[in-house]
């Protein structure tokens, strides 16, 4: 350890500690808000700092900044092991940045019971940092749930229309997904112990054990199926996506930003970091099921998105649709595909968070999410329009933004799977261009509708204020930075994938050859 104290632990503990202080009401209100800034800023600063120092840090089994703590379950092979490798680093940074943006946006939002709202967001933030910093798959799951519970509560208390129903549906759906993946993780643990020796939840140990003694094909197939559907529900794989648009439609904007932007990536990250390398044979047997379902995400949900007339629903459905690309990248099961997924996750996380933020800003100015009742906002709020159009272009996947590199790599990797899959996936880009540009055009250009003129007559429309601009800028700058300099992420990512994937893939080809 080159650092005097464990920054990863600090990045998890700081938001949680601040949340505790806010929950206990130890501070008067202005101070509490100031402290909340600290709670959101520290993880982001630590994330960027570790990103900066990553390549210069010595690595243990592809993990840098590795540290492990015993909490009393070591007899089960569970330890709080924290570390970052090339796959988790980009997502860790994503969690830090989106958390900062969501936090900044929440602090200025003036929500009712702001203290509780910030407390829950901070708990979520702490959980998110933990998810991507965990090397132990038990804690990986544990932190995910820690971040998930506040989402339900936030939807239930501060949500919009149908919040009670939305909160309940999300809770049950996501618990089901989480439970399935938990059983999958337990299965990996138990099976890793079946070849003599104790089982382990530690990813490094698991890799070593399962590489030396690969599990039988049937077992791998079953476990991968559990993980695929469990994680799939959490990432809104078609047709298990129905919670997502409903939930995002009802969720308060900061919660939606954190959930759609970061937390949802948990499942994909789990597939890439855990399921694919540990269960290569299982992955091979599910390839086509996953491909078909993912194409359902891209094409079916893409068309559904075109039909939406509500801005928040468009953003919600589009985030479901883009997850289809990520699943396709997973199905391709190659270094290029997996790398593309990680890049896309970062790009999509930043852009969808930005879109949720901006659509709430649009709502504050127009008092409606109905696309048919808007128009011409660009003349009154040019900066808002510029941000929104940039975010839309990013989410479509235009060069210059982070999403582009992710989608490109995924399309390339799909060609190996089957050219027609690439064709279908590329068709999705056209679909997303249709709904994205149409939404932007409806909101910002053309003549304003009568209804809108009436609303605007009562209160003058202002452009983005600084406290909205700042979080939006954080996200947009990150999008452009990675868009123009993808190497900052792809170099460590590539190194980690090169270290993990070839061994897994050779296991598959060995089986194919022996057949």
């Amino acid at each position: 350890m080159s650092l005097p104290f464990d920054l990863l632990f600090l990045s998890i503990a700081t938001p949680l500690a601040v949340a505790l202080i806010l929950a206990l009401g130890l501070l008067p209100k202005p101070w509490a808000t100031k402290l909340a800034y600290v709670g959101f800023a520290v993880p982001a600063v630590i994330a960027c700092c570790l990103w900066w120092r990553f390549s210069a840090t010595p690595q243990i089994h592809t993990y840098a900044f590795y540290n492990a703590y015993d909490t009393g379950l070591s007899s089960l092979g569970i330890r709080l092991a924290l570390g970052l490798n090339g796959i988790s680093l980009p997502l860790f940074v994503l969690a830090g940045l989106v958390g900062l943006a969501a936090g900044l946006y929440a602090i200025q939002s003036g929500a009712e019971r702001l203290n509780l709202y910030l407390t829950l967001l901070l708990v979520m933030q702490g959980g998110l940092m933990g998810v991507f910093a965990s090397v132990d798959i038990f804690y990986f799951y544990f932190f995910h749930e820690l971040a998930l519970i506040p989402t339900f509560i936030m939807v239930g208390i501060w949500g919009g229309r149908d919040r009670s129903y939305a909160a309940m549906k999300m809770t049950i759906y996501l618990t089901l997904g989480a439970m399935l993946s938990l059983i999958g993780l337990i299965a990996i643990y138990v099976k890793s112990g079946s070849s003599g020796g104790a089982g382990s939840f530690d990813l490094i140990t698991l890799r070593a054990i399962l590489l030396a003694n690969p599990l039988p094909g049937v077992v791998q197939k079953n476990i991968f199926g559990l993980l695929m559907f469990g994680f799939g529900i959490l990432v809104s794989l078609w047709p298990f996506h129905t919670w997502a648009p409903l939930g995002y439609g009802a969720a308060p904007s900061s919660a939606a930003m954190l959930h759609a932007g970061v937390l949802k990536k948990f499942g994909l990250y789990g597939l890439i970091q855990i399921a694919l390398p540990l269960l290569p044979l299982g992955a091979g047997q599910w390839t086509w099921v996953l491909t078909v379902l993912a194409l359902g995400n891209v094409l079916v949900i893409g068309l559904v998105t075109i039909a939406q007339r509500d801005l928040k629903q468009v953003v919600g459905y589009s985030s479901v649709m883009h997850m289809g690309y990520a699943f396709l990248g997973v199905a391709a099961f190659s270094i290029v595909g997996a790398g593309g997924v990680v890049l896309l996750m970062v790009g999509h996380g930043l852009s969808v968070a930005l879109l949720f933020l901006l659509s709430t800003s649009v709502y504050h100015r127009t008092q409606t999410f109905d696309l048919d009742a808007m128009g011409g906002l660009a003349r009154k709020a040019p900066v808002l329009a510029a941000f929104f159009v940039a975010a839309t272009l990013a989410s479509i996947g235009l060069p210059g933004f982070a999403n582009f590199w992710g989608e490109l790599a995924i399309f390339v990797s799909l060609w190996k799977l089957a050219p027609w899959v690439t064709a279908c996936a590329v068709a999705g880009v056209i679909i997303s261009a249709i709904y994205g540009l149409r939404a932007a055009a409806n909101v910002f250009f053309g003549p304003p509708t009568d209804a809108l003129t009436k609303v605007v007559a009562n209160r003058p429309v202002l452009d983005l204020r600084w406290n909205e601009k700042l979080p939006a800028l954080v996200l947009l700058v990150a999008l452009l930075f990675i868009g123009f300099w993808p190497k900052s992420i792809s170099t460590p990512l590539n190194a980690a994938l090169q270290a993990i994937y070839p061994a897994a893939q050779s296991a598959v080809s060995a089986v194919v050859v022996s057949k």
Partner: protein
Amino acid sequence: MNSDLVSIAQSNQWLALTPELLLGCLALLLLALEVILPKKEHNAIPFVSIAGQLGVLAWILLNYRTAFLGYETFGGMLRHSASGQFMRVFFVLCSILASSLGMVALARQRLPKIEFFHIVLVVTAAMMLLAQSNHFVMFFVALETITVGFYVLVSYFRTSASSLEGGLKYLITGALSSAILLFGIVLLYGVAGNKALPGSSEDPMNFVSLHTFLAANPGNFLASVGIVLVLSGVAFKIGAVPFQIWIPDVYQGAPTPVTAFLAVASKAAGFAALLIFAQVFSAYRGVVEPLLGIMAAATIILGNLGALTQHNVKRLMGLSGVSHAGYLLLGVIASYHVPQAIDAIYFYLVVYLCASFAVFGVMTQLAGENDADQELEHYNNLGKPHPFLGTVLAIGLGSLAGIPPLAGFIGKLLVFVAAYQAGLYWLLVVAIAGVVLSIYYYFGWIKAAYFTTLDAPKADAPRVAPARFVLASPMVAMLASLALLSVLLGLYQAPLMAWIAMLHY
């Protein structure tokens, strides 16, 4: 013959029973104090009871590694084991919590109060004996003491019709289950005492000789019937399907502290007995395992489905408690294959104690004069006037639902890992479905407490908002520490794991 009596007399190590004796003396002291003290001093008696129990707890903890560990006393009636010590601590904790809740609940009633605390102590002592019993006579006497004590406790609010109804139902179903249990014991006694069979014994009701006999006679039909009947009798205690039928009405009718005591201590006593029997009957695994397996699956499904539609929170807690018995049964079955399943059960029980008493504590605080009338809608908006109670309730329910980072999650994880290692895949699928179902009703309750509904209150709605009152500070400390434990054990399990590891000495 004479020498036998002498050896039995010599094995009467009364010192080994100090905690039980202390509890018994304390119970008598309470009655004596009621006579001696002037009426206005009677309020102090419950405090004497709680202080005495804390003393007993301290005594057990100080003598945790007693010299009797591993020995049989009283002519083989009792066997002092590490798990017995564990359960002693567990039961004293339960009785302290139940007595404290009892003080709150009884303050609202115009009833004699001291007998309540007296009976709780007697029942606790009997539970301790049950967990250490090594002989069917001891087991049955202890079990009946518990059951008779609960008859009185359940119908303690004698002015309330539902309390009396609950008591009657508990009496009838309890008597039925005792009869079934006794029939099973008689069958086993008859078979194991048959001189014609190998391994028959002079004292066939002793668990050790019964175990030897069963091992020597695998597949004896009468013995199998006896085993099934004995397990059925125990299933009544833990509320496993099909012996859960009494639970909703009795839980609703009983005073809330008694409901809590039933839900936690009585269930734990049942599992302590079940773990003993699992070992005694281990030669008949082929009978026990499928029986418990079907029971566990049915218990989890019926418990959760039943709880889904409940509007009365006491019934809801009862039926959800049934499903928890199902998860624990999963652990009992797994204990045949993986030894650490037993640790998982004890972990689960402790976690269940913390979470359940936290929830029941909040329920006791919020109950009105009519203790049976505790509906979900009384919890609407609880979070606003009583943020503390709301938080404790949310933590308790979250832990029962098994949501990380709360302790209930770790408990479920340990049981599920053990079940997976034991290869109980189908039961695991049922358990997962049960957990997902349970989220619905536990979250529905939290939702009622926290998520403000925009519906305008109906004009004729009775008692919608919980009344305002001041919490006594010991109560605050108790609830806060239960909630805190439920959080801390989710994050840092080392102390509890170390305590459980002492089971293996």
